[in-house]
């Protein structure tokens, strides 16, 4: 079943900090289905855009609206931050945390936690303080913590940046099966191979605005703007 | 520097005497307001030049140990019995201090004792003994608060209790609440203040010269006039009784 939360509509969104415009103006509608991939050079505003959609970044202008009331929408999204945020608890407690917020029965919580610990290969680490995990392990844990809530919409900010090849493939498999269950995914990546493999449609961010957008088929094989062509070549864009 | 007891400071007499001393002797007297015991200790250590207290036995011990050369009586005031206006023990009708205490001993109303070994406290103990009563055997109604005169009066006000206070502190006290002066006048209640200069042989740095100047002034007719003339609400507080040398 397609999520009733979408479409998400960004209208004239700008984010300014100390007089500088980091993002915008952005006008954008996200359809109910599929995976939207955001690419662009460092500092182009990908993270900021993702945060705006998720509602954790204060808007300076414009609005971001879901198809359902905001309070309801907030419950059904998960976000994996670019730098994983670990609660100062054990690995297992990090996974338990989002479930405990919703007063689920204990047995169900434990079952889910164990399922996901196994799924990301951290069952041997479950008693370890999450802050001590290796870079890649933290990223996997953050992703599992996001998925354990079974969100309708999932935001991922470079979820595979520190992952090895096998883990990356594994995560991609997880994402594909989530897509099949109609989870809406919006993610960023610097791995253009990954972008091609997963994207349904794609956005190219540059200097805080959406520079080019299109379905994956056209976007990657026939980029329209000179800037996106340069980006795919790996050239520096002025 | 002069160490004085809290009750002297609370009387407000210092505010009259100090400016006059400044005027006559061009002397800035710095008052250290402490408990009697602490005042004596300050003198022993040579941290003050003289002390003005009211506890005869302690003073004589101070002189006997050579911390001061002699004690000079300056003036006296008197102690008064304070208690709740309703006066459940009927202290106001007593004929003597001893009788007043006996009445308290019978009715056992709340009674606040300084309990700090001060001159006032020692006097109170002596009065109980004179009344053939032993405070150690008293029950809960007898409260030893271990505090200065003002703090003890505050406590008494809070408890609606009887208390022995010096007249000066009582008159100057602002938080009278439900309390009233119930009994006064027995000669046993007189309270002698004495001046003791710290022995310069023990502490070379003390300003004995200034202390002596001050002593001369305090025993002079001018001081007598000021002390006897000091009143609160029309009541005389102190009676000058220094004997000329």
């Amino acid at each position, binding site marked *: 079943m397609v999520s009733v939360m979408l479409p998400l509509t960004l209208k004239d969104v700008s984010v300014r900090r100390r007089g500088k415009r980091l993002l915008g103006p952005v006008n954008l509608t996200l359809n109910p289905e599929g995976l939207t991939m955001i690419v662009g050079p460092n500092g182009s505003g990908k993270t900021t855009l993702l*945060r705006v959609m*998720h509602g*954790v970044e204060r808007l300076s202008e414009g609005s971001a609206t879901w198809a359902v009331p905001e309070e309801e929408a*907030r*419950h059904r*999204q*998960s*976000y994996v*931050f670019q730098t994983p*945020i670990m*609660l*100062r*608890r054990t690995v297992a407690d990090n996974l338990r*945390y*989002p479930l405990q*917020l919703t007063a689920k029965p204990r047995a169900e919580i434990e079952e889910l936690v164990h399922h996901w610990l196994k799924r990301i290969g951290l069952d041997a680490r479950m008693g370890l*303080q999450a*802050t001590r995990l290796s870079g890649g392990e933290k990223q996997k844990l953050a992703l599992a913590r996001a998925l354990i809530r079974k969100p309708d919409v999932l935001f991922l900010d470079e979820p595979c940046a520190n992952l090895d090849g096998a883990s990356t493939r594994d995560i991609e498999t997880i994402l594909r099966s989530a897509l099949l269950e109609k989870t809406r995914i919006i993610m960023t990546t610097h791995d253009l191979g990954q972008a091609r493999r997963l994207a349904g449609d794609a956005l190219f961010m540059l200097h805080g605005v959406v520079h080019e957008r299109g379905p994956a088929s056209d976007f990657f094989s026939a980029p329209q703007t000179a800037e996106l062509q340069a980006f795919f070549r790996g050239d520096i864009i002025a | 520097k002069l160490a004085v007891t809290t009750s002297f400071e609370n009387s407000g007499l210092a505010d009259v005497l100090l400016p006059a001393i400044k005027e006559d002797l061009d002397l800035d007297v710095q008052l250290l307001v*402490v*408990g*009697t*015991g*602490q*005042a*004596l*200790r300050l003198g022993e250590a040579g941290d003050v030049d003289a002390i003005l207290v009211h506890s005869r036995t302690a003073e004589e011990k101070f002189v006997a140990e050579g911390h001061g050369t002699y004690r000079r009586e300056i003036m006296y005031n008197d102690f008064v019995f304070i208690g709740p206006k309703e006066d459940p023990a009927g202290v106001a009708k007593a004929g003597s201090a001893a009788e007043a205490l006996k009445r308290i001993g019978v009715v056992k109303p709340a009674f606040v004792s300084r*309990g*700090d*070994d*001060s001159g006032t406290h020692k006097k109170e103990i002596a009065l109980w003994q004179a009344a053939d009563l032993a405070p150690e055997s008293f029950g*809960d109604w007898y*409260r*030893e*608060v*271990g*505090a*200065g005169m003002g*703090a003890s009066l*505050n*406590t008494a*006000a*809070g*408890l*609606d209790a009887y208390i022995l206070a010096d007249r000066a502190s009582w008159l100057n006290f602002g938080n009278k*609440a*439900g309390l009233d002066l119930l009994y006064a006048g027995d000669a046993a209640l007189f309270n002698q203040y004495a001046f003791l200069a710290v022995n310069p042989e023990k502490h070379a740095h003390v300003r004995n010269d200034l202390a002596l100047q001050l002593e001369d002034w305090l025993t002079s007719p001018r001081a007598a006039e000021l002390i006897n003339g000091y009143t609160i609400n029309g009541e005389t507080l102190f009676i000058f009784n220094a004997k000329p040398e």
Partner: protein
Amino acid sequence: MNDILEGLVAAFWLVVTFDPDLMQISLRSLQVSLSALVIASAIALPLGTFLAIRRFRYRRLTISLLNALMGLPPVVVGLIVYILLSRSGPFGVLGLLFTPTAMIIAQVIIITPLIASITHQAMRELWAEYHDLLISLNTSGWQRIKTLIWDGRRNLLTASLAGFGRAIGEVGAIMIVGGNIDNATRVLTTAIALETGKGDFALALALGFVLIALAIGINISIHWLSRTEREGRW
């Protein structure tokens, strides 16, 4: 100098002979200060955390006020509590004046701003770290406060210990509202003040050393219990 030595010796004797008076007032000190600490912590930890996480209009002002209240002179607190609890005051009927309860009330007022301020400061860092995650998980205000207090409990230790220290060493306020009544409201600090007034410095110091030893004992056992440093992050 001699007084200090004498004080140490006297303290030693008081302790080894299990002086019953000393036991009584030490226990009362502990009882009053620990009760005040528990109550103040129950108010101040959530309050300080709340101030760290919630942005409202007069937040900055509130924090400045809280910091300023750390400077509340105990004597003034004592006075105000005295006036409120006195027979003629609004809470006079409760008959709390000159009881340990009154002392606890005064101490709670004194240490709450201190604990709340330190809590606020400690929680600000943790909140900066957790901010995005807790907002993203759509936690309620109360859930956020609970999470921060729980995960930052090691950092809150200092806040509580500072509050306890201030409470156990305080004398000005409890002298006024407790009255230093023998066998009823006399605690270590008021006893020290009394002996100082009497000029019995050795005994005053002895009681002081007992108090310090008590404080050290409590601190070491708390540290030991919480294994603060063992669970350190590196």
